[in-house]
């Protein structure tokens, strides 16, 4: 029995597509994310009405529009806390955050440690194109040093942030990287991320051919290396995961370094709701107060002599 709700009869991936045509540029990496998500939903037999996809603002954040599920297209950087709210209100829903590198790691970065350390059962899919697409080519926190953007005509002088290492440090219990040019790998990783009980983070290297002329499909094609299959990495090993993560961006500086994809870390441990339930049991809390309980509280508040 899965810990999430499942359909008896499987739907086809196409059944999870909405009737809206994606408004992305031809060749955008984000198309594969929608394809992989709908495939994963189908294989996991998720009821569409039980999926809530929450996104911020950006090209990437449009992804939920193109799928048949409940969705909230929130504000720039605020997908994560809205998703946490939804999960708090109804833990039975499968809640997925669809976001971009700017959305998640610039404006919304303050929410990441808190959602991760609480181990709330959500899946965060970050379409990392190392650029702001929607606002037309400004560098993002994940842009490599020297990348040219519309505001950085001489190349950015900032060091890039390491999404994998950051999320590992924040306490995410599932951390993986995948690549838009490898749909099979992506579908598998997204499936595992959804199945994982706890806070799952999937960084998708998802090229923006329109603005980022460096981190392209061509660039990644010869460089990606499956850390699990090719390097034999065991995702239960946290220290090894951190060590690998620290080398995640080596390829920005060393032309021979690989781009690692795969599951860096995965640990089933108590989720936020497990802890809520444990506390509730300990203090014998009620979910819905009975009229008698409310009345007893009302009576207790009344002045005695009246």
């Amino acid at each position, binding site marked *: 029995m899965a810990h999430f709700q499942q359909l008896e009869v499987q739907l086809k991936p196409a059944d999870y597509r909405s009737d809206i045509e994606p408004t992305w540029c031809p060749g955008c990496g984000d198309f594969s994310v929608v394809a992989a998500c709908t495939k994963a939903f189908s294989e996991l037999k998720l009821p569409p009405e039980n999926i809530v996809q929450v996104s911020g603002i950006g090209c990437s954040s449009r992804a939920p529009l193109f799928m048949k599920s409940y969705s909230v297209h929130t504000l720039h950087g605020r997908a994560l*806390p809205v*998703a946490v709210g939804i999960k*708090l209100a109804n833990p039975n829903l499968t809640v997925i955050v669809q976001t971009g590198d700017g959305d998640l790691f610039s404006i919304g970065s303050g929410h990441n440690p808190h959602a991760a350390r609480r181990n709330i059962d959500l899946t965060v899919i970050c379409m990392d194109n190392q650029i702001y697409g929607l606002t037309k080519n400004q560098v993002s926190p994940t842009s490599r040093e020297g990348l040219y953007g519309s505001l950085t005509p001489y190349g950015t002088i900032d060091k890039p942030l390491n999404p994998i290492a950051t999320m590992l440090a924040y306490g995410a219990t599932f951390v993986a990287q995948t690549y838009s040019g490898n749909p099979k790998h992506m579908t598998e990783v997204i499936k595992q991320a959804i199945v994982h009980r706890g806070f799952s983070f999937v960084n998708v290297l998802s090229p923006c051919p329109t603005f980022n002329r460096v981190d392209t499909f061509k660039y990644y094609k010869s460089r990606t290396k499956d850390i699990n299959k090719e390097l034999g990495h065991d995702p239960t090993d946290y220290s090894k995961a951190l060590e690998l993560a620290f080398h995640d961006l080596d390829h920005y500086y060393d032309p021979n370094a690989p781009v690692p994809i795969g599951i860096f870390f995965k640990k089933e441990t108590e989720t936020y709701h497990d802890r809520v339930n444990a506390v509730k049991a300990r203090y014998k809390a009620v979910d819905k107060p009975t009229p008698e309980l409310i009345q007893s509280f009302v009576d207790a508040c009344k002045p005695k002599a009246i």
Partner: protein
Amino acid sequence: MNILIGGKAGAGIKEAGKMLAQVLASMGYSVFGYVDYPSLIRGGHNFVILRFSEKDIYSVDRKVDIIVATDRRSVNLHTVSSKENTLWIVDEKIDMSNALKAPFKEVAPAFFKSSSILGVILKVLGISPEKGIPVVERLPQRDRNFFIYTEAYKSVPSLFKIEDKKIKKGIITTGNECIALGAVDGGLDFYVAYPMTPATSVLHYLAERQKELGIKAVHPENEIAVISMAVGIAYAGKRVMIGTSGGGFALMTETLSLSGMAEIPLVIYEAQRAGPSTGVPTYTSQSDLLFSLFAGHGEFPRVVIAPGYPQEAYYLARLAMNIAWKYQIPVILIGDKHLGESYFTVNLNRERVVENPIMWDKKEEYKRYCFTENGISPLAFPGTPGAVVKVTSYEHNEKGLTVESAESVLLMQDKRLRKLRTIKEQLLKNEKTVMISEYGKSDIALITWGSTAGVVEEVAKEMDLKVIRPLFIEPFPAQEVKRAIADVRRIVVVECSASGQLDKVLSMNGIKFHKTLRKYDGRPFFRDELKRILEKL
């Protein structure tokens, strides 16, 4: 009678005030307590002024009848509150002629003098020692406090004869507690907040009672997360209130406008304090009135409600919950430190009133923003088979899908405008949106709002002036206010704001006035002070 108790922060001054208020309320008096404390945990000066009477009262005087000085600093600081016949009760170590000396013993060095303060005051007032026992018994280190209380009681003479009135008028509570209970009785499922004075006690109050009330109190990483989580919670179908003060509300404004666009029901409690910026955190003001009306970019329907008393706070918080869900809008409940944290004597008649919102009838295809005549579209929550609910911060069509064409933008803007009209019509017709005094034969009227109500209405009653006080700032009951002032010669606007914010709301609504009384030192109007000013008019 007014009693002032002063002493070091951390010495149990607030607690002593609350205990004394509880004893007096248990004897059938109406008590009002003004609590003055700095934004510090130790080292500052605290004081409480309690006024009690057989009549219902909601204010204190600046000049008091008894001053209890538990340390030397209190003597210097409160000489301004002394009048000719004020009785001074000072710590025995203080050298002061004509003062009654009392041993204000502490439970730990410089800590918790509350039981000795209570013992001394009860004796001086001629109240029997048994009356204080129930409150002393609730203190930690019960035996030690009990001993100190009894010794203190014995140490001074009895100078007054305060009788037991037998019939209680109510219990001691605060505006914040009543807001919390009102929201709960309006169906609250979640309270989400980041601590910020003077809203914090709502979070504490509800967090302590999560179990009995079956609600959840959540404390996220900052106010942006607070309102964002609330949007998620409400979208998933649970009733939520969030609470903060001006600074936190400023952080929330971008998401406030999301809740307007996406039509997400939210109740926001904005407890004002003296700004701008960090300002004077533990003091009161009414300077966020215009901010609450205009916060957020773009144009969307909202309701702004301003209770003046705890009873109103309870009732209006409950109503706010139901209005938010009926119309799927943000409702701002605007209070302040004076309402939220002062001690009031209240007899609350609690009743659970939870009106269910309009839900999808499952007959036709679900459209989250389906066009209706009144602008209200039925709700469906995630997990509902057969419906797919897309909500968005972008302008959208009936299905919640992003649109940009002129016609479709206009259609949805017009839908929200229809909703705005519905809200205006229904609330102004069905709810009590303005308080107009029954007294007031003279041809002078006072217009005020929020917590300034207590003092204004007390003084006005004494001087037979008319009082007009909107409970709803948006929609504003302009017609009723105009009718109420039609035959008045002079109109005076009274508020705790430096620039006059109620003035502007009145002007916006075409209401003329003659004079303004503004206080903006972080303190509420005191009764004697306001009376003196009004008498000169």
